């Protein structure tokens, strides 16, 4: 399969917001994400995971190294690379339906067509009956479902997800992970998923990139060779391939956390 996203020798420094000191976030990152693949990125806090995502989204200018999509250098945000943010990023002054249809609205898709597509995605993420509600009327899980649907509805070639389920409770999280797996099967999107949860990384990823402590380097790539259709928590918990992958990722991350604490 051809590589959709290619990152070569990417190094990044940025000034700290408060002290102004230069922070060395990424060091010579080389990685590829193939078309239709779901990769997860884990690493200790502050290892530059979010920096990588922001660069891929085109939200953060970079100087050293290269990040490209379909062979074209990434130089700014584009609707080809949708982002699901860590925080609540759906617009509080728009209803669920209007948030989900926002991307199509920006592309100038006519109303009738838009409403049809929006209702499809509302069904896909299980928000039927909540079309006219505003974000403050939704639970945390529903807000993130809405955020995922909003990004999907704009139909990007690549979805970049920045710890999207970090703020929801454990039960909802499990449901959202299974739903995302279902969505990945249904839409065949290329997804880069950043998380700090080892379980999540092993459950969702076809491959998992483990990053080192700051400055972030790619430490190891863990393959998780389990068909998407088999990825249901009830089965996965007993699957030796899953357990092996999870334990391996856990061990790598622990080592890095110890390094960053030292």
């Amino acid at each position, binding site marked *: 399969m051809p590589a959709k996203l290619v990152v070569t020798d990417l190094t990044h420094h940025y000034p700290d917001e408060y002290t102004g000191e230069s922070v060395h976030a990424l060091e010579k990152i080389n990685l590829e994400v193939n078309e239709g693949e779901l990769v997860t990125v884990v690493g200790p806090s502050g290892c530059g995971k979010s920096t990588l995502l922001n660069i891929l989204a085109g939200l953060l200018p970079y100087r050293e190294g290269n990040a490209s999509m379909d062979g074209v250098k990434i130089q700014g945000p584009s609707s080809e690379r949708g982002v699901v943010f860590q925080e609540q990023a759906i*617009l509080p002054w728009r209803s669920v339906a209007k948030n989900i249809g926002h991307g199509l609205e920006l592309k100038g898709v006519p109303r009738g067509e838009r409403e049809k597509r929006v209702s499809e995605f509302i069904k896909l993420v299980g928000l039927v009956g909540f079309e006219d509600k505003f974000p403050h009327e939704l639970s945390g899980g529903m807000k993130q479902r809405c955020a995922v649907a909003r990004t999907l509805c704009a139909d990007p070639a690549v979805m970049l997800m920045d710890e999207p389920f970090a703020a929801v409770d454990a039960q909802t999280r499990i449901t959202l992970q299974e739903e995302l797996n279902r969505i990945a099967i249904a839409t065949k999107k290329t997804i880069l998923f950043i998380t700090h949860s080892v379980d999540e990384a092993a459950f969702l990823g076809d491959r998992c990139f483990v990053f080192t402590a700051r400055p972030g380097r790619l430490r190891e790539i863990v393959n998780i060779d389990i068909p998407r259709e088999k990825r249901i928590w009830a089965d996965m918990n007993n699957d030796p391939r899953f357990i092996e992958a999870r334990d391996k990722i856990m061990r790598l991350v622990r080592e890095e956390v110890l390094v960053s604490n030292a």
Partner: protein
Amino acid sequence: MNILQSISIGVQRRFGRQRLRKIFLGSIPFAVIIFAWFMNGYMGWFPPVFIPPIGEVWASFFLLQEDCPGIGAIVALDQRCLMSTHILSSLSRVILAAVIGLPAGIALGIVAGMSRPISKFLEPIGIFANSISGIAWIPLAIVWFGVGWKTTLFILLNTIFWLLFFNSMMCVRTVSRVYEQSVLTMGGSRWAVIRDVFLPGAMPSIITGIRLALGFGWRALIAAEMVGGDSGLGFMIFSSAAEFRMEEVFLGVIIISLIFLATDRYLLAPLEKWTILRWGLIWKPT
């Protein structure tokens, strides 16, 4: 007693107990002042040249308007309709300044709030302009524009514009950057970001800013009219005082506060409440 009680309960139901209480308590200081004023007329504590009798103040309103030929002359700000001409010329200046100053202040404030370089460029000059309160410009304005409407309008615009500029800039900065980024990554343009993120996000605070700016503007206008105007309520107070027509001075002060009270209460406060109800429940900037 039963009838009284049922009337009282009816009134309370109709207007709300808390609201009646508020109106009642709030009107006590006014009642005390008016009572003392009446008493002064009878007792003669202060001579009329300090505090004119309440009846004279009331009568002066009609005296000033006495020579007015009709509605047409009122609208044309005829000098014979003194009272209405003063009121209308003050009001029309506020409206003119609002029409020019509010959109300009809001637009520039939003742009400055969005862009770091532009805000760095405009912020120091803004602080400079704001620190010299509106009325401190009066001497300079008189030299530049002479005595008259240009000076008063300049003072008013100066006050409204900078206040709104600053307020809007700060409001826009409170809008989370994630919203902007989410629109950009859905293919939104700069303009789409303004329309869909910054404008709705900053709206409740901008309306509050409008309310504040018009309040300050009204006060600055009165001051400007006193020194650098040739018509308007401020001018009326000042010129009447120079001729010791104290009833007109009192009348002017009362009308100024009544107009301010009425616009704030029946126009600006409901507008603010409406936007907060419309947006604030959905979205409250923190």
